[in-house]
């Protein structure tokens, strides 16, 4: 009853294809942005910002990147971690070469390097499909991981073989490095993620998004109606890797402050993939929900025993967290295989017809 599009007529096609055609949604998004940009930095604890919100945003961006490739274009990739790594190391090198340039610019630029890597490793997709394609991306994953440790130039020959983040400022406020407060870093991340999400939503609502989805749903038919498969697939690889690269750069520069080759290993790739699947393939909102669930749930589970003042051993808590997380993933899938985003839609649908069941 409250959530109705009835009565909201669109008079132009432009308005009809707007991002949030329904008034209630518009109000919702403004509220969310207000809370995220203003309220959270003012009120949330450092722990909440730095261990929950920032990582969720960073992973959401990576998940969006992967979702563009896997969810929208139907190309399964297990190389996300590697592409994130390319972004991170590229950003590190750029920061070394151009200490004067604004770090946010560099973070964005590093995406281009990831995109180039994405195109390179996406080439086999022209011939190989499905799970078979995943091996190409796996090859990239392992090869890139190997490069991150074997090419000392990438980490400026540090003996620790890791990259550390120098302190850089934006309008005089430090945004990277140890002196940057979690809230500042969070706001920068949030801004980048918001803008890039908006851009991604533009892409997928237009011609490019449609060709991607066409390729995903039935590539043969897509080709027969005049879509060039190789262009489409490579573009998807490029854009996807760009997003992952930026996410990787943010992971190091705006969150962890330090990284080594292991930060971008195969497990990272799987993690992002699971966020995408749990969130919902082919849904931007799902990328956020998935990241929130997969990253946030273990943290919540870990704090649960504390609430009840149960003194369970740290290891046992961890084991039970693992078991619960596993069980919850399965439960979620059974409840709604198409991901949290679909669950959300069904919820909206129910709201629309409320108080009637259908």
């Amino acid at each position: 009853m409250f959530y109705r599009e009835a009565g909201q007529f669109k008079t132009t096609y432009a308005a009809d294809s707007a991002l949030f055609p329904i008034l209630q949604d518009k109000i919702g998004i403004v509220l969310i942005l207000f809370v995220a940009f203003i309220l959270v930095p003012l009120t949330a604890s450092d722990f909440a910002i730095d261990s929950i919100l920032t990582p969720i945003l960073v992973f959401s961006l990576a998940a969006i990147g992967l979702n563009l490739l896997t969810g929208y274009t139907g190309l399964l990739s297990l190389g996300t971690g590697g592409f994130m790594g390319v972004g991170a190391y590229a950003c590190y090198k750029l920061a070394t070469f151009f200490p004067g340039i604004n770090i946010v610019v560099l973070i964005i630029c590093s995406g281009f390097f990831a995109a180039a890597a994405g195109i390179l490793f996406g080439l086999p997709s022209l011939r190989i499909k499905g799970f078979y394609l995943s091996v190409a991306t796996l090859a990239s994953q392992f090869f890139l991981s190997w490069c991150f440790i074997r090419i000392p130039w990438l980490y400026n020959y540090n003996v620790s073989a890791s990259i550390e983040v120098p302190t850089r400022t934006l309008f005089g406020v430090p945004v990277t490095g140890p002196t940057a407060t979690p809230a500042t870093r969070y706001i920068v991340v949030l801004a980048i993620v918001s803008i890039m999400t908006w851009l991604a939503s533009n892409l997928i609502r237009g011609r490019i998004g449609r060709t991607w989805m066409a390729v995903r749903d039935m590539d043969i038919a897509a080709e027969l109606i005049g879509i060039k498969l190789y262009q489409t697939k490579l573009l998807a690889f490029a854009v996807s890797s760009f997003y992952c690269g930026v996410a990787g750069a943010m992971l190091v520069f705006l969150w962890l402050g330090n990284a080594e080759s292991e930060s971008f290993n195969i497990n990272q790739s799987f993690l992002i993939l699971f966020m995408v699947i749990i969130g919902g393939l082919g849904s931007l909102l799902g990328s956020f929900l998935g990241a929130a669930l997969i990253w946030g749930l273990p943290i919540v589970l870990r704090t649960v025993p504390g609430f009840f003042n149960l003194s369970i051993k740290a290891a046992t808590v961890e084991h039970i967290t693992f078991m619960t997380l596993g069980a919850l993933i399965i439960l979620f899938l059974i409840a709604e295989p198409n991901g949290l985003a679909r669950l959300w839609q069904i919820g909206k649908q129910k709201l629309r017809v409320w108080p009637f069941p259908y």
Partner: protein
Amino acid sequence: ASAETFIPLFTYRTGPFANSGTPIANGMHDYFSMLNARDGGIGGSKVAVEECETGYKNEKGVECYESVKGKHPAIITPYSTGITLALIPKAAVDHIPILSMAYGLSASAVGKDFPWIFNPPATYWDGLSIIFRYIGGKEGGLDKLKGKTIGYIFFDGGYGREPLPLLHQFAKDYGFNVKEYPVPPAQMQNQSSIWLSVRRDRPAYMIMWGWGAMNPTAVQEAAKTGYPMDHFIGIWWSGSEDDARPAGPAGKGYLSLNFNAVGANFPALQDIKKYVIDKGNSQTPKGQLGENFYNRGVLNAAVIAEGIRNAQKLTGKKDITGDEMRRGMESLKITAARWKEIGLGGFAAPMAVSCSDHNGHHSAYVQQWDGTKWVKVSDWIAPMKDKVEPLLDAAAADYVKKNQPWPKRTEACDKSS
């Protein structure tokens, strides 16, 4: 608040490295529990221990850090080089000391650049130089290595790569060749081609910087290839019972460095048994007390306890802040007599840390696997400080340069107690 000192322990009892993480965690935990049970804490201040499970993952480690940093921890023990590296810049900002006992960033030994990080008793470079001293002793002089090949098998990550500069310098100094055998993380249990290469290259000695499942596999593969085990030496992280045991009798002769004693015959350990384990207040399984990594955990906890005592002495307060703990650590001095006093006589080499030297470059010894247990086969060997220190200074300078603007040390130094 009531007198209480908060000590978070970053541990990993899960994940692929749980085998090494668990006994260390047990040792640390039990020692503090023992102090609480026996003495009512340290200097009248009860120790509040809280474990945070990292699973040996950096992100989790940072998360643990964020979750404890608001609770005024006296000191943090990350127990992972990766996590230590991630925390080094943060520690200075939050004024929380970090103890990375013989791991982490070697350069953090330089107190003027890293006031908040402590890594006694020795750095990896010290460890490598000790190994060479030992080899030199066996060969009758390091110049005997001339023209020979030394193999270096290592975990292909920051940890395993760190000794490389010194190793190559040694190679230059003593005229031997180095063969590197990196083991990628995913290949830890799949080393057959590496050991084939060893068979081809016939190194006179094999030195290992391994961790987790890499160690037992290496020992087994070495035995399989017929490599002379008493020419195969691991760093102190490659010397747990679990590393050598799976090879069975064939693993006999395998050597490794150590800086804590093995065995349970120390009054403090017996107190742990009496006050903690026998009371059922411990997770330690039977037989683990006295094992190498368990004792390492005890040593770690003992050093912290001494640091706290020192800080209490300096400030005259029971409850100490991170700042005070840093001062306590920076003037830490545990003589052989003091070790004995706290029930750990001969457990470790005398240890001193100073404001400028956060490490101390202490001695270690070589132990050998006799098929069932570790046996000490050398004296305490001091590292080649002259070779290590310039490297350390250079590394610290390099770190500072690369991380500009790195804050200058502002913390004052106490006099050594």
